[in-house]
């Protein structure tokens, strides 16, 4: 019996058996296209189709949206998403492409939309048929999210939207966007409202999506420009002027502190390149010659890798301890560290991998001699997406200092 199983409720145990049986038959073959390092770098329709097919089949098997009610397309179960995630990770399935939909849009819609809208939107979100994106950041509103200027002007039952969103991952494939905008210019936080907006159907008619290129050379995130886009008032979530509170629901889930567990997987990827894992560094160090031996024999390299291993294990044990209330003084203390730690560990792992590679870290994806196909310099550059997006590491430290340690706001 595995450790995970020991504490299963009867419902969980039954569900786990189902998941294991299904996955044994249905874990997809590796793709023929190169997969990106995360769902946020999906560039081509080939990549998307492969991943969408996987999400659809997992949804049909009941492994996505397990804990949402049946009426909104969920599985109607109790605490089973975590079981599904564990089993998918173990089975090394691909990751799911609708990552913003599942992780951020779904809980936000679930907690803040009217019943009818939930029932309409969530099933296709879970199945991956509708890809979602997030319209939060603007050129002038990054860490200071509450300063968004995208404006919706009332026009009867409609709203007319103008503005400019940036760093919008997946917008080039997205059917829907969760959109934080301003409906009142006279107050800051209380002037914000929150909408879901069908953007694909409005492309060329009030919505323009332009790809931005990342530091790595990849596309995958975009600017989205709204010019007199009309949307119905029924697409508004929660009350007018409550956009900031709704956004907090979104961000809590993005930072791993939300109430609903996000369907996730990605075992395949982490197995195939050992991405960000200390085990991958060990593997790399063993293959890398250094001073007449291998880098794995260098005491400084060993110490660095062990530090990474300890940080990674520490994060895993944090997540475990986060469920043991007797060992937790403050309910948010560990959950709010998650994004900060994960992104910084990822960055340092990739940086250490480049150090291990030495001169060969200069070689990129187009070079046949690049160790691990040039993935490490790419991972290192991509890691800054994670220490910057969704609240920079600096903002995360503010949040921890203020919400957990109770220190005065730094702004």
């Amino acid at each position: 019996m595995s450790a995970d199983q020991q504490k299963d409720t009867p419902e969980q145990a039954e569900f786990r058996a189902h998941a294991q049986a299904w996955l044994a038959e249905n874990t997809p073959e590796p793709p023929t296209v190169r997969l990106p390092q995360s769902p946020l770098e999906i560039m081509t329709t080939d990549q998307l189709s492969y991943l969408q097919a996987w999400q659809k089949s997992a949804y049909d098997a009941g492994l996505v949206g397990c804990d949402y009610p049946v009426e909104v397309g969920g599985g109607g179960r109790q605490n089973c998403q975590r079981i599904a995630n564990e089993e998918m990770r173990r089975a090394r399935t691909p990751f799911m492409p609708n990552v913003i939909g599942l992780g951020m849009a779904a809980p936000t819609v679930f907690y803040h939309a009217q019943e009818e809208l939930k029932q309409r939107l969530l099933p296709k979100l879970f199945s991956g048929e509708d890809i979602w994106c997030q319209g939060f950041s603007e050129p002038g509103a990054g860490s200071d999210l509450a300063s968004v200027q995208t404006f919706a002007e009332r026009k009867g039952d409609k709203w007319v939207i103008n503005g400019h969103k940036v760093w919008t991952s997946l917008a080039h494939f997205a059917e829907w966007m969760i959109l934080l905008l301003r409906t009142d210019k006279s107050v800051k936080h209380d002037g914000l409202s929150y909408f879901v907006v069908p953007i694909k159907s409005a492309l060329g008619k009030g919505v323009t999506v332009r790809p931005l290129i990342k530091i790595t050379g990849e596309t995958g995130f975009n600017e989205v420009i709204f010019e007199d886009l009309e949307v119905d008032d029924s697409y508004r979530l929660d009350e007018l002027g409550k956009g900031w509170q709704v956004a907090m629901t979104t961000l809590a889930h993005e930072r791993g502190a939300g109430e609903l567990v996000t369907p996730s997987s990605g075992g395949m990827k982490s197995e195939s390149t050992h991405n960000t894992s200390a085990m991958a560094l060990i593997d790399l160090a063993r293959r890398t010659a250094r001073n007449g031996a291998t880098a794995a024999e260098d005491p400084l390299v060993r110490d660095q890798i062990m530090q990474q291993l300890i940080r990674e294990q520490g994060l895993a044990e944090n997540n475990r301890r986060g469920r043991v209330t007797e060992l937790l003084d403050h309910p948010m203390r560990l959950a709010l560290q998650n994004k900060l730690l994960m992104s910084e560990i990822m960055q340092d792992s990739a940086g250490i991998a480049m150090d291990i590679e030495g001169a060969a870290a200069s070689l990129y994806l187009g070079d046949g001699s690049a160790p691990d196909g040039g993935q490490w310099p790419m991972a290192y550059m991509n890691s800054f997406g994670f220490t910057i997006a969704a609240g920079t590491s600096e903002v995360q430290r503010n949040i921890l200092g203020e919400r957990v340690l109770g220190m005065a706001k730094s702004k």
Partner: protein
Amino acid sequence: MTQPDNFGFTEEAALLKDSARKLLAEKFTADVLHGMVAGDPTPERGPALHWDEALWAQMQELGWGLLAVPEAQGGVGMPLVAVAGLCEELGRAAFPCPLLPTLSASYLLGAAGAGGEAPLEAIAEGATASLAVSDANGSWDLAQTPVECIDGKLNGTACFVQDIGKVSHLLVCARNGDTTGLYWLAVDAPGVDVQADAIVDLSRDQGRVVFAGVEAMQVCADASAAFARAMPAIWTLYAADMVGAGEWQLQTTVDYANQRQQFDRPLGFFQAVKHQLVDVMVDIDRAKSLVYSAACAWDTEPEEAARYAHMAQSAASDMAASASSRSVQCHGGIGFTWECFVHLFFKRQKHSQMLWGDGPWHRARLASIVMG
């Protein structure tokens, strides 16, 4: 992997931890500690021994000293994870007492087979003990033990024996021909000369023990297996102590940063302070999670215990250093004074940081396990 998801941290364990916290919060706050141990500040002060024997006696009555003694020998036989919770609380109070060394000795005795039973029974009846294994270089390696057993008599000088002034017995590692054995004796046995050290840490005492032809009871002739089994538990408990002390350092410094005003703002407004303390919190949480994971591994997956204990001790040792440094720095001038309680925990943590191997040492061992 058969580790329980909740570290095996039962209600009973939670109760033990909670009652320790309450008892110490009531009876042994930092000002009590300061009043007890900080009377002589002079840097040249000699060895000192200050502790609350009455409170320790009360703890003994509660059975804390025999938590690690198996039920068969009259003890409680609590899982390590529960004992770690207790040690975290004693660390939070920097409570001077012989619990950690006695637990350490208990785990070693418990792993030593039949010979360990009589000493364990003594512990169950109130004996306390400390481990004599280190040489003058501070090596904690069994093979480097500076004591020898010749013709049944111990000779040599063991160093860095923890809380030696507070214990009734010693568990000695001594070379015995080709192997290293374990020996049990009373501190006041003939031929034992305890020389107390003058140390920085005010919440502990430490000493060297000179053995000159001392007769002792042999627990086992070859301690290597017992040592390998017990050390992960010892590392875990010392790490738990550091976690508790780190938490005191964090909370006390956060309180100060929230209350102290400069530039018409509380110190905590300034990111230079706020982010330092967040980093300390992150370090503490990592160490704490790894401590309970290590304890759980020791309880449920013995063959993996060393791996997890090395991680816990490495994280805790590094955290003890960073939390100490930041607790003084963020207190500013007042943190640099003897009257501020911060130095008590600073000194305890700098002491703990080095006990039973520091971060790099544990990572080197971990690397041998993981990387070969």
